[in-house]
């Protein structure tokens, strides 16, 4: 269970959670620079990582 944890009956994969943090932080940094923000962008990033479409950091 080193890389897994349980929350609300859902098994959280810590690696995936970290990948999300990285992607969302990248997005937020860009967002801070451009003064824009979109929840949809963050939703997409979370969903894509869970769906396995991407789990590595890449520049948006």
């Amino acid at each position, binding site marked *: 269970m080193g890389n897994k944890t349980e929350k609300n009956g*859902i098994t959280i994969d810590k690696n*995936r959670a970290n990948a999300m*943090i990285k992607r*969302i932080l990248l997005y*937020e*940094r860009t967002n801070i*620079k451009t003064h824009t923000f979109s*929840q949809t962008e963050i939703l997409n990033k979370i969903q894509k990582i869970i769906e396995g479409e991407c789990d590595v950091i890449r520049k948006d």
Partner: protein
Amino acid sequence: MLLEKIELENFRQFKGKQTINFSKDENKNITLVFGENGGGKTTLAQAFHWVLYGENEFNDKNLLNCDVIKEMQYNDYKKVSIKLFIKKKNIGYIFERSIKYAKKNNKEARKVDSEQFSVSKTEQGNQTVLENREAQNIVQETLPKELSNFFIFDGERIRKLSAEIDKGKSDNLFGEAVRGLLGLTAMQSIIKHLGKSTSTGTNTVIGRYNKKIDSTSLSQSKKYSERIQEYQEKIKKCECKLSENKQAEITYKKLVLDSHEKLNQIIPEEDLQKEREKYLTLASKSEKRYDNFTKEILSTFNKKAPAFFLKAITPMVMKELQENKSVEKSLPDIQQRTIELLIDRKKCVCGREIRENSEEYKTLRELQQYLPPQSIASSIRQFTTETKSHIKNADGVFKELELKMKKRATTFEEIKTNQQKADNISDTSVSADKAKHIRLQIAEYNKKRDEITTEQAQINRKIGEWQNSVKQMDAKRKELILVDKENQKNNEYKTYAEYISEKLTSIYKKEEAKTRETLEDTINKIFEDIYEGGMHLSVDDKYNIKVSITDPTNGDKNTLERSTAQNYSIIFAFIAGIIQMAKENKKEKKEDSIYYDESEGYPLIMDAPLSAFDKKRIKNICETLPDIAQQIIFFIKDTDGKVAQTYLQDRIGTEYSIKKDTLTTSTIEEKKNV
């Protein structure tokens, strides 16, 4: 990040092209620009704001040098521009902002176009011009606007910050600066944007997921599943029944066919039996008729034979009766009871009295003997009439009897003939009964088949209805299942969002507390260097700064009434503190480096920073700041400058002076032999 140079063209006091090359020497990181009052020190500080962000705080918004305007001819065009050269990670950037003016009358020139902004990038000798959005991004990335108050500031800004410190409450400027310079802004932003697990609004990520999740669909879907199962069981039972009925229908059909076959075999026997029954019926009818004839003969004989036989003596009897007078003695229509009534009344209808044993009495009694009901006369009269009638009827009696006897004999022959015919056909009544029984059975079987057919139709109709319901419910269930699948997904996404929000909040809180603690230590150290010992600066969680005096005897910290110099020292300490931390933050390789923004070292550009301080403090500041910031640019008035020059001597890389040529034009000159 290093500022390399700034080029000004016709910008306010600076006529033509004028350049300041900033010192890039790590050990001599100070660029000192002297200037007398009105020479253009503040203009130079403002030049950074304008080139980077397109903003300035001049009251007169005309940026073109006044002498240039004077020299321009009507409809001449002149450009105002500033170029800022920086180097970042071995890449050179040139930020350029310009605007065109045209002379429209003797005194003034007007803008003829909007401001133009561009960033060109020089990497390994290749120069490219960046697109507008990328150019804006580079500005934000290099020198963020929201932090500009902390690395480019002048006396006015110091006064504003000082006022905030006096109020004991900042407008969160310090907090933002700390988070921004130390790379925590993105983390703070992500926590805010993710929201809390209870958020329901659409302006947070978790709120959006909460809105997406439809908690009722799961139970509804289960309900549909249960009902579908219920209907499917019913359909299954009905289908079993249909199959059983079908089998029964086949059985009955076979039974009917078999019965018809049996019946066909019996039918010829049955026909013979019918013929036999016909003869028997005829014989039976003849027997009835025969009996009737017998009865008629006897009746005729009984009725008419006595008269016939009396016919010979009748005349004698009639003669005797005529001779008897009893008929004459009677009174017609008077009965014995009438006489009895008169005797009882003792008075006759004629009014004569009737006494017992009187003549009248005796006459009446005698008359009574000839009166009905015991009247012989009446009987004789009746007998006579009847006898006359009998005698008259007795005339054809023999002929009548003879005829009837003949008919009776014929009927008897008929009976015998029919009976004989019937006897000639063998008795097959058993077969007839059997045929009847079979027919009844066929009728029964057909009735059962009809019942089954009706039942099958009803069952099929029910099955059809249920199948339709199942189809409809299944469609609804599928929709709900889709929602449920979506829910499960959204719940998973939301849980991840909550998890990362909680994780980042925990890291952020820990890191921010640590940062504040470090900041407090750092600014206290710097403050001690700049100002004096015996005072303590504390930073609360809102980044409000409080100064207290430390009593060396008991260590108590008491709040202190502050002077302007103290406030300025605090600001210097604060700004220097966060710039130093940013610099160290950059050097330090953090364990969880992904959480922190890649902070750049920032220059410190200060306009008239030393005006509020005495020589002693100027000395302290001059000795402290060069070690803290990566690059320092001071715009300083000549009086302060001389003191600063004395204390900063070893750290000054480049020195410039602004020479005031006219009231409206100055020239920047580099000082040699620094």
